[in-house]
């Protein structure tokens, strides 16, 4: 398998506003899509946004080789994402992809995916991928409130979905890690994949260690290049400071030295 990185002008072929803070872009590639693995990300150039100098990283949300499209799930945070939210079908977007490593292929069927906020982005692609491997994971996803809960049907196609909302307006009330699934004495999983805010991932990692479950997390970091040359995005690991954009974004928690 080859992982040639590309810089391409993708065409916006779909725009779905999930809720006021989140939207999904569907992007059509001008040539045959490269092989993309779950957990990989793209670096997006935000043209026409004066305060956005560097590219912005987003996980690949889904890949559709038949339509030759990828999708990104984007949360509006600052100028760059605000600007992307104004894109329309037909616009083009300069994207560097696929970048980073990927979630590992599990050697077990007892798989749990945990995602919070825009951290759910790579998990849809991962569940599709697991589905192809005949694995039906459990998926716990956390949202702020009912109106932000989205794409549950899509996840349900590939796994058993559990929802939390901070305010309890849908699913269980509380943070993802407060979900009752984690309260059991013995968690029925041999592998956890997790993506979300730092604090959440650290809690999940603690739980995983406690229950002796293998666990991979997808880290965020401030990135300048996204392909390994600037050394701005490091995280301390058992091999020293490693690049989140090349050796990551996915790390096994055993390798991380969380600060």
């Amino acid at each position, binding site marked *: 398998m080859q992982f040639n990185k590309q810089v391409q002008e993708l065409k916006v072929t779909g725009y779905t506003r999930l809720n006021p803070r989140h939207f999904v872009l569907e992007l059509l590639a001008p040539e045959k899509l490269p092989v993309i693995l779950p957990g990989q990300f793209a670096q997006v150039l935000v043209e026409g946004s004066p305060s956005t*100098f560097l590219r912005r990283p987003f996980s690949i949300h889904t890949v559709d080789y038949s339509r030759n499209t990828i999708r990104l799930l984007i949360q509006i945070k600052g100028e760059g994402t605000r600007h992307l939210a104004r894109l329309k079908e037909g616009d083009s977007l300069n994207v560097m992809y696929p970048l980073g490593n990927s979630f590992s292929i599990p050697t077990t069927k007892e798989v749990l995916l945990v995602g919070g906020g825009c951290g759910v982005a790579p998990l849809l692609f991962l569940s599709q991928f697991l589905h192809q491997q005949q694995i039906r994971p459990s998926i716990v996803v956390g949202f702020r409130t009912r109106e932000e809960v989205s794409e549950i049907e899509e996840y349900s196609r590939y796994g058993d979905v559990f929802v939390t909302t901070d305010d309890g307006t849908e699913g269980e009330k509380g943070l993802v890690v407060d979900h009752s699934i984690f309260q059991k004495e013995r968690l029925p999983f041999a592998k956890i994949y997790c993506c979300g805010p730092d604090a959440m991932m650290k809690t999940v990692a603690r739980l995983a260690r406690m229950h002796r479950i293998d666990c991979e997390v997808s880290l965020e*970091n401030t990135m*300048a290049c996204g392909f390994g*040359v*600037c050394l701005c*995005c490091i995280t301390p690991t058992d091999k020293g400071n490693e690049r989140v954009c090349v050796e990551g974004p996915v790390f096994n928690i055993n390798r991380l030295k969380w600060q």
Partner: protein
Amino acid sequence: MADLSVNISGLTFKNPVTTASGTFGYGDEFTDFIDIGRLGGIFVKAVTGRNRDGNAYPRMAETASGMLNSVGLQNKGVDHFCREIYPKIKDFNTQVIVNVSGSTVEEYVEVAERINELENIPGIELNISCPNVKLGGMAFGTVPSMATEVTREVRNVYKKVLMVKLSPNVTSITDLAKAVVDGGADVVTLINTLLGMAIDVERRRPVLSTITGGLSGPAIKPVALRMVWQVHKAVNVPIIGLGGIMNATDAIEFLLAGASAIQVGTANFIDPQISVKIVDGIDAYLNKHKINKVTDLIGALRTE
């Protein structure tokens, strides 16, 4: 097709476009995007005496038309470079220059001696912007006498082309340029990053773990261009110019100000193909203006 080649202290660069240290890795990450053989040269990232972990996270802050970094010379040391990296890059079809750093004169000398043995490395670029541990953290590159000393000591052991890269955080860049030429530098490179800072007002904390960091990108281009011009008038060695170059027009500004070659830095992060596009853009400019060779642009600014 105009003649794009330039001669820098006896070394022939097929064109004046090279890449800046710390922004191009060891070149290998770029092979997905460009043919490195199309560049005049590449400056690989800083090599120090021993392994360095660099600074803690976060190391980057975006600023208006620029960025701050506090990578802190993360690298695996000169041994590792000679053993593991050199074999991979020694056959690139371009001039490969090694950026040499240290915290003491001895460290610079040690690294330079080791690199001197590598056949396919025709030159080194001394990065004298690093804080000098013996001088209480003051950078070598800000005190002319120290700059002369470190250059001279390296000159004594290094037999090929010796370039010295200057820090812009000084009152008089020409004093520093003269100082390193006195010490035996064949070429001066300018500029390194400006010292800057960014604050997160929500957390009321500095964005960088190191509080301050190095500013690069188009924001610094006017300062870089001014320094190249000043040094061009003050010393008689070739200059390699950089600082905020994003396109061929920017590159040509540096040539006109007196640079014999240029380096592309931060722009590589945004468009990894930009260096090759700049080669093409310079060629197009020369053709449009009916100029036969790029060397006719060097220092050709009209100020009368």
